[in-house]
């Protein structure tokens, strides 16, 4: 072994040790190793470049070690206040997918049923020609783009400018509709302004963390380890309120299980108790809160072209109180399966004026046919008690994707959105037209298709051209049993930009080879309103290009070149500088590029050179101008809204024929549909395939043992997968759970495409299935 190789091996051994230490730190916060062991890795010729992690909405800061133009190592960024040097197993191994042997390096065009490698320029010509031709023949609303909460800010921005400003159609939506839309409508209806008011530093101050249907130990592992650290150090308490026992439940101080959908009733019962026991913060409520009720029996969106518009009616505190009489702990305990004692226990935590409480949630509350309502209801609890917008006190809606906030929500890659505001608002359209330098009439004032309806329109033949970027809808949509054949239809020309082949690229007419995360420059925005920037770190293989650049190239070919005057080398920065004009001002000002380059992210509103950590609180937020301690300036009168929202059942509940609830979700090892993480050998080996978790008693009744194949069937489709009993998670009796990362075991063939009528976000957590041994 020559000297270089020996050095190399010793370097890799240090890396391996460091990776184990990082993993150990997430299991045992505060764990220490002898000093001489952690002196760090020899730097060699490595250059460490900063950026955000590719994988989840926590937005950990990473440092990528680059040597001779290759990414060879990843470590947590100790300067990032998000993760303070820690990473989870996905974050640590992220760069290992880049070199996967089936990486998409060149454009592929389907010719006579076969994919033919094609020069990228030619493929982009074809995409532009098809798009133009389709518009000419069938109108602007016959073409669509479907992007992602993993698109960078510049990628989302040019997609919006291209579709809404150049072509003039609102046929743009994104996969964040499937994960975050209810959070958005929750924020807008209650506060008139999107995104959480607090920040991760809340973790260092809270006495209680109450997680609502949120398995943070697996989904937000670095934040969860920060919470565990506070539990161990200061005795902070974690209460897990969920429908299934998970790793998070096991690490919490208390686990409370509820019957699916009844979180609505329990939240109301908590408010009932708060009022009954005199725990209302009267001064706060009088000064800062209005009461509204909305429509009821609002449907589930199961039929094509479903439409619904909520109507708010003002009510008073007494009317709200009378409404809550239906939600006494005794009444709610009967159908929620949460004991009266536990409901009172939760209410007492929120009601205690001397305890600081943060509520965390993510998909459990958002992927819910009453997703907007349950978001409103948890805000009600915090508003009644005045526990909001202060360090350690507040409701905190977490995101799943790394830029669901930064791109999907802030840039606004939804059909109804613009980078600032909504298409239905004339002033917002005028601002967009001014910055984009397009005639205001070109931006249509009516939203068109949200995600589910967009794929229904493909199925009906109404959409004849669709371009997907950074997403894999044929694994992630609900009821893929309908949408896969829809996308295979001749009537729609499908363009897929991606890094690896997926079941979605399998049905594409053109596949465009996208740059991966660190092969391009960009910005992401995480769950705590933190914008993080990174510079291109390595060259991508073959003819790969950033998605933003491919959109620009197609726009140019369609005659919109003057709207996209950016340079290839520097387009991400040029686009960001244009974009931040939309958010100027104290309420949403974004940090300038120079700041983002220097530090590990900045939280908006970024005002007078400072991040605003707690919005709506005059002590921290310069946008508060009402002269009071709090100012909910998203609403015209500066007051937040407590919403009267009832419990309504799920659209499909277990029956004699389909006796189980099906719940779906993620596992720590895999990111979303697994297209990246399943190409990382360590992660793939740790979790090679999906499975169906059953309660041991249900398994016994059905004669099913661990590992045996079972068939899970709904009215929409079925899937055969191995049973998992007493392994990672434990569903309650009468419930089964399957992760959705495995494209070979497609649980979304089984799920239902019912959605929240207000947010249009589908419910992946509840439908009725039967389970049979095969």
């Amino acid at each position, binding site marked *: 072994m020559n000297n270089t*190789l020996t050095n*190399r*091996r010793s370097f*890799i*051994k240090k*890396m*391996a*040790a460091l*990776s*184990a*230490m990082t*993993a*150990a730190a997430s*299991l*045992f916060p*505060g*764990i*220490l*190793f*002898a000093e001489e*062991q952690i002196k760090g890795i020899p730097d060699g010729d490595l250059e460490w470049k900063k950026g955000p992690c590719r994988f989840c909405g926590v937005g950990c800061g990473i440092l990528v070690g680059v040597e001779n133009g290759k990414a*060879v190592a990843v470590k947590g960024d100790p300067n990032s206040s998000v993760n303070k040097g820690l990473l989870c*197993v996905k974050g*640590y*191994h992220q760069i290992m997918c880049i*070199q996967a042997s089936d990486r998409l390096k060149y454009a592929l065009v389907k010719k006579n049923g076969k994919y033919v490698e094609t020069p990228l320029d030619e493929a982009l010509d074809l995409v532009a020609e098809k798009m133009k031709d389709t518009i000419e023949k069938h109108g602007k609303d016959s073409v669509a783009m479907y992007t992602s909460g993993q698109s960078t800010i510049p990628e989302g921005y040019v997609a919006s400018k291209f579709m809404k400003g150049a072509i003039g159609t609102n046929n743009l939506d994104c996969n964040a509709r499937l994960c975050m839309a209810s959070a958005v409508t929750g924020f807008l209806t209650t506060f008139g302004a999107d995104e959480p008011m607090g920040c991760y530093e809340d973790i260092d101050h809270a006495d209680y963390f109450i997680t609502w249907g949120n398995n943070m130990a697996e989904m937000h592992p670095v934040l969860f380890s920060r919470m565990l650290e506070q539990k161990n150090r200061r005795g902070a308490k974690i209460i897990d309120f969920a429908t299934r026992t998970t790793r998070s439940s096991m690490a919490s101080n208390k686990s409370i299980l509820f019957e699916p959908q009844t979180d609505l009733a329990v939240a109301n019962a908590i408010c009932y108790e708060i009022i009954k026991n005199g725990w209302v913060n009267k001064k706060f409520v009088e000064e800062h809160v209005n009461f509204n009720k909305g429509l009821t029996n609002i449907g589930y969106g199961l039929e094509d072209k479903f439409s619904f518009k909520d109507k708010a009616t003002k009510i008073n505190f007494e009317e709200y109180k009378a409404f809550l009489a239906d939600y006494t702990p005794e009444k709610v305990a009967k159908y929620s399966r949460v004991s009266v004692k536990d409901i009172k226990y939760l209410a007492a935590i929120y009601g205690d004026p001397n305890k600081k409480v943060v509520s965390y949630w993510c998909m459990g509350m958002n992927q819910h046919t009453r997703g907007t309502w349950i978001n409103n209801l948890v805000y009600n609890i915090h508003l009644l008690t005045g526990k909001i917008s202060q360090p350690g006190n507040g409701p905190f809606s977490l995101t799943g994707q790394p830029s669901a906030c930064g791109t999907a929500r802030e840039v606004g890659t939804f059909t109804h959105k613009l980078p600032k505001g909504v298409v239905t608002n004339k002033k917002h359209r005028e601002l967009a037209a001014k910055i984009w330098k397009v005639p205001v009439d070109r931006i249509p004032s009516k939203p068109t298709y949200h995600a589910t309806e967009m794929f229904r329109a493909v199925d009906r033949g109404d959409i004849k051209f669709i371009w997907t970027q950074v997403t894999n809808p044929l694994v992630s949509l609900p009821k893929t049993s309908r949408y896969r054949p829809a996308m295979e239809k001749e009537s729609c020309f499908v363009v897929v930009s991606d890094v690896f082949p997926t079941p979605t690229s399998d049905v594409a007419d053109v596949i465009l080879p996208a740059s991966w995360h660190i092969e391009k420059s960009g910005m992401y925005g995480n769950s705590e309103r933190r914008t993080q920037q990174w510079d291109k770190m390595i060259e991508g293989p073959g003819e790969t290009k950033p998605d933003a650049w491919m959109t620009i190239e197609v726009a140019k070919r369609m005659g919109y070149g003057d709207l996209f005057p950016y340079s290839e080398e520097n387009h991400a920065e040029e686009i960001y500088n244009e974009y931040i004009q939309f958010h100027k001002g104290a309420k949403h000002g974004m940090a300038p590029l120079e700041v983002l380059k220097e530090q590990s992210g900045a939280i908006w509103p970024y005002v007078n050179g400072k991040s605003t950590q707690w919005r709506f609180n005059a002590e921290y937020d310069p946008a508060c101008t009402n002269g009071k301690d709090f100012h909910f300036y998203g609403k015209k009168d500066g007051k937040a809204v407590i919403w009267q929202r009832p419990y309504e059942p799920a659209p499909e509940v277990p029956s004699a024929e389909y006796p189980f609830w099906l719940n779906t979700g993620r596992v720590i090892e895999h990111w979303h549909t697994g297209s990246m993480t399943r190409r990382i*050998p*360590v992660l793939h*080996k*740790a979790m090679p395939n999906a499975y169906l978790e059953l309660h041991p008693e249900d398994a016994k009744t059905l004669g099913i043992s661990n590992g045996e194949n079972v068939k899970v069937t709904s009215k929409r489709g079925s899937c055969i997968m191995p049973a998992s009993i007493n392994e990672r998670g434990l569903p309650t009796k009468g419930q089964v759970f399957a992760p959705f990362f495995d494209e070979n075991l497609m649980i979304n063939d089984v799920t239902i495409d019912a959605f929240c009528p207000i947010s249009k976000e589908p419910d992946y957590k509840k439908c009725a299935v039967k389970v049979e041994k095969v």
Partner: protein
Amino acid sequence: MPIKSYLAHPQEDKKQALFEALSKIEQCEVIPAKNEDLLIVVTDTNSQEEEDKLKKLMENIDSLKLLSMVSGFNTPKND
């Protein structure tokens, strides 16, 4: 030529015994945590077969409760 790292959880009160047993194995480097019942093991072997054998050997140590792999690198191929 695989290099792997593991988290080794000892049986109750057996951290020292596990440390000693693992340290005796030539291909293992062991880093004990100072304040938790946990050891980090980095293994360095010449082939996958050797690595598999080594893993079996480690798993047979009485004082070991659980061995979980954290990362694996195969050098110099993946360098």
